[in-house]
């Protein structure tokens, strides 16, 4: 009896473990950082650039039904105003949000060169409003120009608080232009995004192999590669490589370790 009591007590004295975390994949922090770049670049293209093509159609069509369709569907919370001298503005209520100077050319025409200026630093993102994802203050500028069937998206660091890019985008859509929901495109170039995350973080990126987005519902890009270098004052830079294998998976190299991720895998520790 005494012995049994002692044994039961000793067994019960064994510690209880809880709150255990899995070690998981070793590159999960790399994936986390990559995902932020992916989100920033995707939003920049799909929220900043593609709406300019919607606006281009709105400007250059005489079809009032089509104009209304574009307003209702792509700028539902905004009003487009023609200011004269090839300048257009986008308002949200009484607030002027953007000024777009087309210099008299359609964005779809070779030699076009648009200047988009953000007029208001505080923007609520309603639908596909063009926003400058990585910018923080008003007055920032984006240039979009066309040559050789592709568009160059430029942001100058001096105009954009250090954030810059030189991105070439080419449509894979049937019409050869980036319109409506057909967001199929290739992307190349480089730049730097800026994040505010417990201090200012700079993220240089260089697309080393042309990235493409081929399907409407693919989660990541389906081919191509990008190298990222994330920087913060007083810390060592974090280099990351991402290679897109197909529409469901991509490969991350972080701290000299390369692992393949499926689109549905989350970086569990974050």
């Amino acid at each position, binding site marked *: *009896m*005494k012995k049994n*009591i*002692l044994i*039961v*007590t000793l067994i*019960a*004295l064994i*510690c*209880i*473990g*809880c*709150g*255990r*975390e*899995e*070690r*998981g994949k*070793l590159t*999960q*922090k790399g994936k*986390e*950082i990559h995902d932020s770049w992916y989100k920033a670049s995707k939003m920049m293209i799909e929220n900043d650039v593609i709406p300019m093509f919607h606006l281009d159609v709105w400007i250059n069509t005489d079809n009032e039904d089509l104009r209304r369709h574009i307003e209702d569907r792509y700028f539902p919370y905004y009003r487009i105003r023609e200011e004269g001298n090839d300048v257009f503005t986008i308002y949200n209520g009484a607030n002027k949000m953007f000024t777009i100077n087309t210099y008299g050319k359609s964005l779809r025409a070779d030699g076009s060169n648009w200047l988009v200026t953000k007029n208001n630093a505080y923007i609520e993102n309603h639908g596909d409003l063009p926003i400058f994802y990585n910018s923080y203050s008003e007055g920032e500028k984006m240039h979009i120009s066309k040559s050789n069937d592709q568009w160059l998206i430029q942001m100058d660091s001096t105009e954009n608080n250090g954030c810059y890019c030189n991105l070439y985008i080419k449509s894979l859509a049937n019409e050869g232009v980036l319109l409506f929901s057909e967001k199929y495109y290739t992307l190349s170039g480089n730049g730097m995004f800026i994040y505010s*995350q*417990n201090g200012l*973080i700079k993220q240089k990126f260089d697309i080393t192999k042309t990235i493409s987005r081929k399907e409407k519902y693919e989660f990541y890009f389906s081919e191509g590669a990008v190298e990222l270098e*994330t920087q*913060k004052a007083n*810390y060592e830079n*974090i280099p990351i490589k991402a290679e897109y294998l197909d529409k469901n998976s991509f490969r991350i190299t972080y*701290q000299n*370790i390369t692992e393949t991720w499926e689109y549905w895998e989350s970086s569990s*520790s*974050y």
Partner: protein
Amino acid sequence: MKKFLLSFIIVCMAWGLAAQDAPSWKQQLPRHDVYLGIGDPLIAGVLTGRFEFFSKCGGLFTKCSDDEYIPDWFALDSYSKGLIATPTISIGYQYRLAKWFWLGGTFSYTGFYEAKHERISNLKCSSYNSHLISILPEARFSWLNKEKVTMYSGFGLGLAIYTDDTHYSDKFYSPKPPTWDETFCGLAIHLTAVGIHVGKKWYGFAELGFGYKGIIQAGFGYNFNSKKKSNQ
């Protein structure tokens, strides 16, 4: 203050009753009781913040939204192999003043140990441990007093001391981040709803209650009478 007053009155009543009791129970039932028990660390874990069932963000009932969560990419990438919580270990003594009334005290300890490991090297990079000690003067009311079985209820009110201990490895942290370790004292309480002793001199016991000793407690103990008393 009211609780202390109530305890005092109960003690006085018990002394009075003890004086009136016939000496028979003193010969049949033991006066001294020492015991070692272990209880679950749930209450201690919640009280010290090491178990978060109802946390504002990331608890059982609420989740962090994406906006609330800001990851730090430049922080060391570490993971926890788990929070180790010891059971609440209690050592106590009770003295039977009357057939149905006991007074004594319990010393309890609950420890929480958590180590973090750097994800890639899998080496230990930091630890965060907490220790909770409670010293509880206790009153016990035994409402079934048989030779081999005693059933009782009780309560204890005393002092709790809690301390944190965080350690960062030099290898991974240079400079070391600030620690927020603290030690504080507070009120400790434990209510025993139902307890049972089974056995004669050596016995096993189980208790159901609520407080610093946990919700369920079990262990073993030893009953004895002093030589003088046993000769009465």
